[in-house]
């Protein structure tokens, strides 16, 4: 038991590179149609570790810092993406405590709804700042984020098993 624990690597080994990849995916130049409906990769990566690993305690703080970095790279008002990402993580981890036990399509619905709500919050704040304009398209990323959740989940799960990273604590604890 002890030896198996020793063999397990820290989740940070995977989280940090994934966050970097997520950041690149968020800012990489894509055709306009794809770019407008780009899912929230960073949030999905953080969400995977937040719901799967009980050891990952500083989810909110990390998502805040990552969001701040995203603001700096995209030139958005400082703090807006930090608020958006951390709010999503907060809502899902506190309001849906058994999120990791849900069936995949239920998880997708929750991710989509929370992303949709927080998108409206972001739009609302940017509107107060005076930078936003109304366009129904801004709600489509919520759908694409929900659709991408199973892929991100599977990719992360495969990567975790490949690099023998301990993440399934929560299920064992339950």
């Amino acid at each position, binding site marked *: 038991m002890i030896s198996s624990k020793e063999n397990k690597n820290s989740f940070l080994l995977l989280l940090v590179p994934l966050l970097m990849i997520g950041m690149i995916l968020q800012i990489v*130049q894509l055709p306009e149609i794809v770019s407008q409906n780009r899912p929230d990769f960073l949030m999905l990566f953080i969400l995977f570790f937040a719901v799967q690993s009980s050891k990952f305690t500083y989810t909110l703080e990390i998502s805040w810092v990552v969001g701040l970095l995203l603001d*700096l*790279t995209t*030139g958005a008002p400082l703090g807006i993406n930090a*608020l958006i990402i*951390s709010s999503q993580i907060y809502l899902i981890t506190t309001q849906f405590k058994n999120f990791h036990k849900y069936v995949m399509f239920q998880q997708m619905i929750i991710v989509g709804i929370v992303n949709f709500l927080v998108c409206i919050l972001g739009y609302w704040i940017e509107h107060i700042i005076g930078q936003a*304009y109304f366009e129904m398209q801004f709600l489509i990323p919520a759908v694409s984020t929900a659709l991408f959740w199973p892929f991100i989940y599977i990719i992360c799960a495969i990567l975790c098993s490949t690099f023998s990273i301990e993440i399934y604590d929560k299920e064992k604890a339950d």
Partner: protein
Amino acid sequence: MDIDLKVTDQDNYLVHLRFAIIVFLALSVMALDVRSKVLADFRYYVESALYPVLVFADSPHSVSKIVSSQFKSHSDLIKENEKLSTENFLQRADILRLKDLEYENEALRKLLNSPARHNTKRLFAEVIDVDPDPYLSRVIVNQGTSAEVYEGMPVITDMGLVGQVIEANYSYSRVLLLTDPNCQIPIIDSRSSVRGICSGSGSHNQIFFNNVPRSADVREGDLLLTSGIGGVYPRGYPVAIVTSVGVSDSQPFAAITASPLVEIDKMRYVLMFSTNTQDSKDIDYAQKAKNITDNKIILNQQRVRDLIDKLSVKGANNKNEAEKIEETSNEVKHDQ
């Protein structure tokens, strides 16, 4: 079990507290950034340091471009070369005429005592990233304050106006596109000289020509140019072509939409233009011209006064002389 519950309750409580702190921090940072500009320096340095990340993010695009250019066939290259050299030849011929017109214009402006415009500084830049924020239409170009880019610098392409620089970092800068709702450009209709301000719609192929009375002479197909009013955009650059003019009796203004000439979603290279209003030579010249004009008014006034005086004196003299002549002639007549 009880202990576990207590621990989880405490954890939950802590999570709420942590989230509250994070929300407070995010909102205060946002307020500081947007309203007070306290973090402007911080942003400048950190964003300049993050430039490699942007370059890396653009790498798929640039790599695909390099690869596709490497795989062009020899005959394609020859064709392209021929086409470009023909184009170059024609453009050289046009430039010959342009030079002549420039000299003529300068001479005419000198005659009118208005300062000649020297648009000397042009900066070639490449679009390296498009802002992913769905609410903003902005692009990032690879020239910054190191190449003397400043905030408010107009940006164009060979097709027309693109927008202006809104944020200049050390090695890159952000360009606010003319399609952004925050971008307002003073324009003039090239056909009817109707002046106005256009603003972006948020969509990349449409801008609005706002607050134009229904009676204004704006028609479909009119070319809109920058009017030069406001001092940010130089005069005479094409902006858009009017696509529809909607006049409704219930509305006080006409609903005019135009389509930008620049294909904003496809452009790769831009020219950044400095109008050189800060150039000391231009200021000197403008001052000189102003002095000349001012002096001229005074001179003119003085001249006119002198002239009137002279004329009146001359007139009086002439009168006297004429009277004298008449008298003498009468005397002569009497003598005879």
